[in-house]
């Protein structure tokens, strides 16, 4: 891989939380992410797996600058994001988008579908109202939302449809990277299949890079190219899908693989 193809380069990334235990006790320091290193290449699906509390979502939040790292650096296309200028941040926020786990709480219940999908365009582009509306319709059609649903509210939709709204919102600014934080774990299996199919189609069509966070190894095996296994803030294994499933090296990965009930 040439330098050009590296989207993210993560170096010694660390996040600690301190919990105050009262006036006379020393605060407790919890390492959520412990000096991790990895690279994400253009066009791939990079999966981060692990159980609750392993630091996978914290890592994602740091990529999106929702959480500030305690130490370490994140390079986006070769540039350290902590040195970004205001203008560069604006660009970065367009290029890196997120889809959340829970399609019930990540959409504003008082906004219509049209307003939700149009908001990133209003904030980040100089398009006219008319152009925005036509762009929203275009993206709605692409993710499988019907034309006359524009004025409906999130509560009128099923879980799978709401996740499509979330995907449309992430997609509307033509991003390069989408961070998917457990995008299908709240959905029924049949709906999960629809959303996974959509994500695969969109990746091909728009040349997207996914950072895919999940605890479901079946889903991860199906969709990703490389997998990083995390355990209590540490990376315990990082390899290609084939290798991880055929020849897992870390003890924890073996344990994780043997724990999945298979059909």
């Amino acid at each position, binding site marked *: 891989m040439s330098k050009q193809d590296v989207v993210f380069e993560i170096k010694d990334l660390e996040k600690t939380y301190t919990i105050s235990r009262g006036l006379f006790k020393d605060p407790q320091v919890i390492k959520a992410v412990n000096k991790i290193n990895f690279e994400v290449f253009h066009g791939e699906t990079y999966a981060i797996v692990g159980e609750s509390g392993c630091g996978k979502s914290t890592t994602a939040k740091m990529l999106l600058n929702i959480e500030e790292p305690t130490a370490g650096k994140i390079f986006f296309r070769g540039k350290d994001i902590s040195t970004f200028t205001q203008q560069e941040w604006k660009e970065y926020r367009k290029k890196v988008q997120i889809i959340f786990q829970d399609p019930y709480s990540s959409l504003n219940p008082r906004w219509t579908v049209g307003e939700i999908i149009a908001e990133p365009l209003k904030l980040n582009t100089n398009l006219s109202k008319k152009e925005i509306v036509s762009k929203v319709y275009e993206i709605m059609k692409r993710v499988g939302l019907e034309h006359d649903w524009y004025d409906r509210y999130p509560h009128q939709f099923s879980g799978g449809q709401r996740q499509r709204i979330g995907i449309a919102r992430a997609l509307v600014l033509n991003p390069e990277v989408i961070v998917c934080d457990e995008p299908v774990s709240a959905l029924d*299996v*049949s709906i*999960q*299949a629809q959303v996974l199919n959509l994500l695969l189609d969109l990746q091909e069509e728009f040349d997207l890079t996914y950072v895919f966070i999940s*605890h479901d190894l*079946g*889903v991860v095996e199906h969709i990703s190219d490389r997998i990083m296994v995390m355990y209590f803030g540490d990376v315990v294994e990082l390899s290609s899908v084939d290798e991880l499933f055929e020849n897992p090296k870390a003890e924890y990965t073996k344990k*994780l693989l043997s724990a*999945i009930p*298979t059909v």
Partner: protein
Amino acid sequence: MLLEVKNLKTQFFNDVGDIACTCVNETSFEIQKGKTVCIVGESGSGKSMTSLSIMGLVEEPGRVTGGEVLFEGKDLLKQNETSMRSIRGKDIAMIFQEPMTSLNPSYTVGYQIDEVLRLHKKELNKTQRKQKVIELFELVGMPLPADKYNEYPFKLSGGQRQRVMIAMAMACEPKLLIADEPTTALDVTIQAQVLELMNELQAKKGTSILFITHDLGVVAQMADEVIVMYKGNVVEQASVEDLFENPRHPYTKALLNSIPRPGKVKRKSRLDTVDENINYLDFPKEIR
């Protein structure tokens, strides 16, 4: 035969008394002693409603409107509330999905299990009951069982809380254990432990289990018999081997093909989906 459900029908009614929804429609199945029957289906398929109907826990505006639930030959639908209370917790126990919301946050877990014994095992005195609770903790593999008696639910991890729920359910050695998505909220490695625990307890005590889940992987690991529900109806019923090797109903096939199965589905291929435009009830039931 431990439990025989015959043509069970549970319906919900609107304000003027018309039928708003038939959540369980003419469902029939049996559970043998010491066996596990799984009900599988998507949200809204009526699987939880079936278990609540068996326990007599359907709340207004819902009502069981037809059928029989024969537990050791006795129709549970005809029992009054007092005799149902003596059956619930003693002969039939239930484990729910979310252990945090089904435990009372303001009592210690020991006290909450003790309550079951106070109600159903009146012959035991206080010391004997405490001894029994600690034995139950040991049975479900709780670390430091004696210390856990005085812990509050919030101090325990998800897996430990689910162990408390199982200990509570096993307190009176019930003949039937109804487990409604008991591992859905847990991590996979913890899920594996809980499932193994349930299998062990079944082997030791001969408990029958009615297991409700949407996870076909869990079904494959736990079930002897599988019931597939769709929109309140049973569409397929078969032994676990038959169901996975030779699914017959189009809905079952669609459901099985919609999960990414390592080694069986080509990586990054598009998965089959359950078609929302097809009413799968138009196909005949497949009951083996």
